[in-house]
């Protein structure tokens, strides 16, 4: 799943036709979801006016930039058979906290730093409670979701916190090679976490833990430490997303990111990350995020009625997974 197996297959197969068939199917398996996305994109480009324009593509990328960042870490979380509902709250809290600290200290850098530390702390608490006290991840992160959201409201008195320093806004609005900074950050996240997943012990251990935590422990994987790290990094990245969002909006908003967690998790699952753990691919997650964003974008462009948008969103979600699952039918018996 993690990377094309085609070459490996070719090396050890038995008969030439079997080898060919296996190779072909493996390619279908590895790239089916990407194919779905390409088709979707092509069809939309041809049928929806303005869809295939630089402006729109950038807009699309911006609209999924927060989800994209956090989806990278959520992928790790799900791959290790965990679950994190607290990311939406962390996004909100980080934005508010960054704004407050920046205003208080007059330094945006301190604000950002403090906010990142706070996000990492939230993640650490999640991880420690889940790994060490062995409390169900759903309940734990539901609890921190509430608590952190509460902190965001308390810190901001329920009001958006404007940032006085103009420097802060460049983070969200500056462009580099005609792509806005948030998009670059998201791309960087995909690269970094893709490498982490596929090329490092951390990523491999994450997958092993998700595949079979007991076996991983007996094989000498520091299960607790890895799980804590996963949540900590997730908190950190969620905080980063929150800071960037605040910068884009020029204020920290305590009610930002509601429902964010479900969107992120859906994007991951759509991208083939198994909720049962052990299976994840960064390209899948990327495509999952893009499909979600593209559908929403196209619907706005097509001026689809708000109520009917619900239907379309639901239907697309179903169709995308359905097409992707067809490959499994073949394997099932």
């Amino acid at each position, binding site marked *: 799943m993690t990377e094309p197996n085609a070459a490996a297959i070719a090396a050890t197969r038995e008969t030439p036709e079997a080898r060919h068939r296996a190779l072909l199917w493996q390619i279908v398996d590895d790239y089916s979801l990407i194919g779905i996305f390409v088709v979707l994109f092509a069809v939309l480009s041809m049928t929806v006016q303005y869809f295939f*324009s630089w402006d*729109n593509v950038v*807009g699309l990328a*911006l*609209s999924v930039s927060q989800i994209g960042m956090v989806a990278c870490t959520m992928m790790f979380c799900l791959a290790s058979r965990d679950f994190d509902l607290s990311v939406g709250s962390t996004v909100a809290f980080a934005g508010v906290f960054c704004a407050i600290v920046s205003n208080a200290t007059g330094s945006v850098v301190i604000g950002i730093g403090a906010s990142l530390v706070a996000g990492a702390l939230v993640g650490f608490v999640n991880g420690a409670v889940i790994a060490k006290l062995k409390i169900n991840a759903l309940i734990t992160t539901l609890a921190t979701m509430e608590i952190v959201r509460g902190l965001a409201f308390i810190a901001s008195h329920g009001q958006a916190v*404007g*940032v006085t320093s103009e420097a802060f806004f460049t983070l969200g609005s500056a462009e580099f090679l005609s792509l806005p900074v948030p998009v670059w950050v998201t791309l960087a996240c995909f690269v970094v976490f893709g490498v982490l997943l596929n090329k490092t012990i951390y990523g491999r251990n994450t997958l092993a833990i998700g595949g079979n935590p007991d076996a991983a422990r007996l094989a000498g994987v520091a299960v607790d430490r890895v799980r804590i790290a996963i949540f900590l990094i997730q908190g950190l990245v969620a905080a980063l997303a929150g800071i960037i969002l605040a910068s884009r909006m020029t204020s920290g908003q305590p009610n930002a990111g509601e429902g964010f967690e479900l969107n992120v998790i859906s994007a991951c699952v759509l991208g083939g990350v198994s909720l049962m753990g052990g299976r994840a691919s960064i390209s899948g997650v990327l495509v999952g995020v893009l499909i979600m964003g593209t559908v929403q974008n196209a619907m706005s462009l097509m001026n689809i009625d*708000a109520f009917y*948008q619900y239907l379309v969103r639901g239907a697309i979600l179903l169709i995308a997974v359905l097409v992707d699952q067809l490959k499994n039918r073949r394997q099932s018996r």
Partner: protein
Amino acid sequence: FAADDPVKIGFVVKQPEEPWFQDEWKYAEQAAKEKGFTLVKIGAPDGGQVLTAIDNLKSQHAQGFIICTPDVKLGPSIVAKAKIDKLKLMTVDDRLVDGAGNPIESVPHMGISASKIGEQVGEAIAAEMKKRGWKPEETGALRISYDQLPTAKERTDGAIAALTAAGFPKANVVNAPQAKTDTENAFNAANIAITQNPKYKHWIAFGLNDEAVLGAVRAAEGRNFRADNMIGVGIGGSKSALNEFAKAQPTGFFGSVLISPKRHGYETSVNMYEWIKNGKAPPQLTFTTGQLITRANAAEIRKDMGL
């Protein structure tokens, strides 16, 4: 912008599912039909999506947009974004503020301030109390609150301000926070508040919208405070309110402050169209007013407003 390009106007609202915004869109659509421009309707329930919506409008070559933002503090970023994308900007319902909390004067606005509506609610309740001759000290006031939403807080605070101005004791205001903004949560909040305060003979109720007040009315009914011991006044004049008025027997849902979605939707769109097409700048500030509808006059007033 060349004079013969087709005009395209965005209309961005914070809660696309809400009847109020559906109505605004409906009347904007009517204007579009009459004037022959394209209307793009986008829902943007949070700050991130507002920015996405503006990007989206730019991609489809709209020339301007009208927005009711989920948070007025998004002001500076919306203004900046509109400027970068070269889109004309007007606001409706909620007025943008800058970092310091002052209204951004440069953006044309049509609307009614949240605290103003709240005050109208308070005044309506106070008047009805007086008419019924209730003693304020025997009356409890249910503030169905949802302080997480700045507008909601301003509305309820406005109502309290008007009530106290009319001599209602502030101590009798019972805060009943709802966990979500639906009727069931309002019901639960009100129910507990009534339990806590068995001393009151009568109740009044106000909140963010009609649904909040409806929940309070239902809860009061469950505790045997019916039409003659309950005055609930909602905001919006929505179907929830009209359903109450349509019932055979009067209920504790006394009235609702109706604001005209027609003016907000239709007039703003037409103004924006004129601005783009003929360069005729809209008025900087238009304040509309709400009107109390009750069982007695709902149909009549709605007709007057062209609803």
